[in-house]
């Protein structure tokens, strides 16, 4: 939580844009996305499929498909500008200072090597350490991520582990070099609810313990509300609202955020069997230029002024809480109250 003490800035992203040439023209899946992550802070990027959240994370890691064009005014990790570094330097950074955890633990571990092999390799690749030191660190981290009998697990192969265990191994692997920044892309989507809670708990604990910055990408608003310090809501390539978790969940200002929160059933809050809120329509195509507000076609408050020019981010009630809409914050809130009544 933001407790007033200034944490050290670890990742600064400013106007990150990704363009991909496709048959129909130029696709703009990520458009001028800006955010900052500090040590010990978790930023959740939340949005529906196709909003650009995964491409945002891949572009930070420079793992975009080769045809994609990435531009930014700033993309700095711990003060080092990442935009023009060589691929070799980037490969050094990946897995060392900045590590990634993917959604599907089954496919992100190599089935023909043992867990121990893959964990040690992650460290040996980046550090001059002996094999036994690497092994010790692997055991230490496997225990940290809650795997019992860690030393004997080292000789096991990925297929011998359950999905939850594999995801724990993935987390341990991401932590091998003691990264400053962790990017987790839907780390719990493929897991059961009970395991999901455990893995999230673990991630939150480890992140505080090692004082890392973390970006968590998810579509699950429940996960976001529980784990995030700051939230960035993405829609159609743009960040439409950012703020602390409290600000965004207790005072959602952008109509899209409001709509999303009305869509999910909440035990004890939504009336059983009653109609849930819904957002009509579909995400617009991001090929070519899209003037005005991207959400306008699905927005209940849309007016003519929403369809022209560029809608910029503006301050909501509290400092640090911004949203992308032509409406005043109190207008949005009034709409929300009316909707709830």
């Amino acid at each position, binding site marked *: 939580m933001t407790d007033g003490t200034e944490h050290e800035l670890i990742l600064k992203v400013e106007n990150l844009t990704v363009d991909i040439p496709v048959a129909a023209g130029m696709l703009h899946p990520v458009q001028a996305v800006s955010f900052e992550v500090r040590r010990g802070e978790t930023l959740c990027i939340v949005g529906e499929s196709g909003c650009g959240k995964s491409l945002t994370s891949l572009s930070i890691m420079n793992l975009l498909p080769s045809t994609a064009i990435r531009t930014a005014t700033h993309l700095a990790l711990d003060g080092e500008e990442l935009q023009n570094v060589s691929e070799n330097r980037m490969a050094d950074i990946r897995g060392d200072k900045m590590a990634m955890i993917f959604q599907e633990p089954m496919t992100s571990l190599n089935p023909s090597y043992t867990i121990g092999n893959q964990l040690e390799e992650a460290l040996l690749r980046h550090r001059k350490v002996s094999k036994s030191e690497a092994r010790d660190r692997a055991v230490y981290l496997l225990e940290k991520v809650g795997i019992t009998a860690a030393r004997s697990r080292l000789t096991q192969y990925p297929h011998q582990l359950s999905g939850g265990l594999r995801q724990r191994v993935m987390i341990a692997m991401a932590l091998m070099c003691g990264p400053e920044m962790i990017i987790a892309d839907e780390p719990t989507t493929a897991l059961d609810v009970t*395991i999901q*809670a455990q893995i999230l708990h673990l991630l939150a604990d480890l992140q505080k313990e090692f004082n890392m910055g973390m970006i968590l990408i998810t579509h699950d608003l429940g996960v976001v509300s*529980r784990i995030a310090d700051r939230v960035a809501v993405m829609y159609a390539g743009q960040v439409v609202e950012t703020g602390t978790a409290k600000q965004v969940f*207790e005072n959602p200002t952008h109509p899209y955020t409001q709509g999303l929160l009305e869509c999910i*059933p909440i*035990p004890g809050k939504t009336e059983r069997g009653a*109609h849930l809120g819904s957002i009509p329509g579909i995400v617009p195509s991001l090929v070519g230029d899209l003037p005005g507000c991207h959400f306008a076609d699905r927005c209940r408050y849309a007016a003519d002024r929403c369809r022209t020019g560029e809608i910029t981010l503006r301050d909501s009630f509290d400092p640090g809480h911004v949203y992308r809409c032509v409406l005043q914050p109190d207008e949005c809130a009034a709409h929300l109250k009316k909707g709830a009544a």
Partner: protein
Amino acid sequence: MAETDKDGQDIVLEARDVTRTFMISAGFLRGKRPLHAVNGVNLKVPRGEVLGLVGESGCGKSTMAKMLLGLLPPSSGELFVDNVPTSRMERLEMARKVQPIFQDPYSSLNPRKTIGDIIALPVRVQGNADETALRRQVEEIMELVGLPRRLYRNYPNQLSGGQRQRVAVARALINKPEVVICDEPTSALDVSVQSQILNLLQDLRAELNLTYIVISHNLAVVEHMATRVAVMYLGRLVEVAETDRLFENPQHPYTKALLDSVLTPDPNLGVPDSSLGVTYPNPVDPPSGCTFHPRCADCMDHCSQSAPRTIATETGYVECHLYDDNQGRGRAAS
């Protein structure tokens, strides 16, 4: 046609001691071992109810769904639809009464068929197809589920995920079935589309007097949809209760653990630390006694020795030694 049982309820679907066993090869030259995917399930679903079936992956809920659809015969026990044992039902008769809605609207529609053909299939199979009447019937059901009529000649790849799921709903409902098995009906969909499909399912239930079995790992969806909830663990129903009772006062320790792990959007709460151990047991080699005992927070000495009896509760039953007065050792009060 509706016979009522002795409590005056109209039971549309019933499972009596249903078991399904698969023979799993244990390894090269090691022979086969039985896996009890579903192990002695008893269940009664009154007409018009929505039964939520929840549990972790591998607990047997998909096998249960296949049996309820008649795609897989039970190894032992008997299923009844409208008080008729399914083993004595014709395939077409079964198909008229029970229909599925699957999780992934991308794999549940044949990409080479038009929307009209997909929705009309259940009627055509029944054999009484007058093409003009059928066309009208398809268009009516399309309207009912909110699909524009002009999509009749389109192919699934031309539709969005939400529209595809509406096609699946239309196909399931065109023959006016009595029971619809919804296997994770919304978990492949985006949040904003999910709510539309849930709303649609609610509306249709009221309009067509349907009975739903909603299989989901998303307890928030189950809470929203279901009138009764059955919790499944390693092939057995460990707790069945009305939704309100289950969510307000869960009895079985496993139900409690499941409910604890639901993440409602509330920024004031942290991530709960689930009390369940790491591993879901291997179903080929289930733990002795109560199969849940290795992960149970309230485990007692005799839990690992004897399987718990089925104990009736106010609105259902629970299988746990904590509530067994004969064996209870003073802890049942908690």
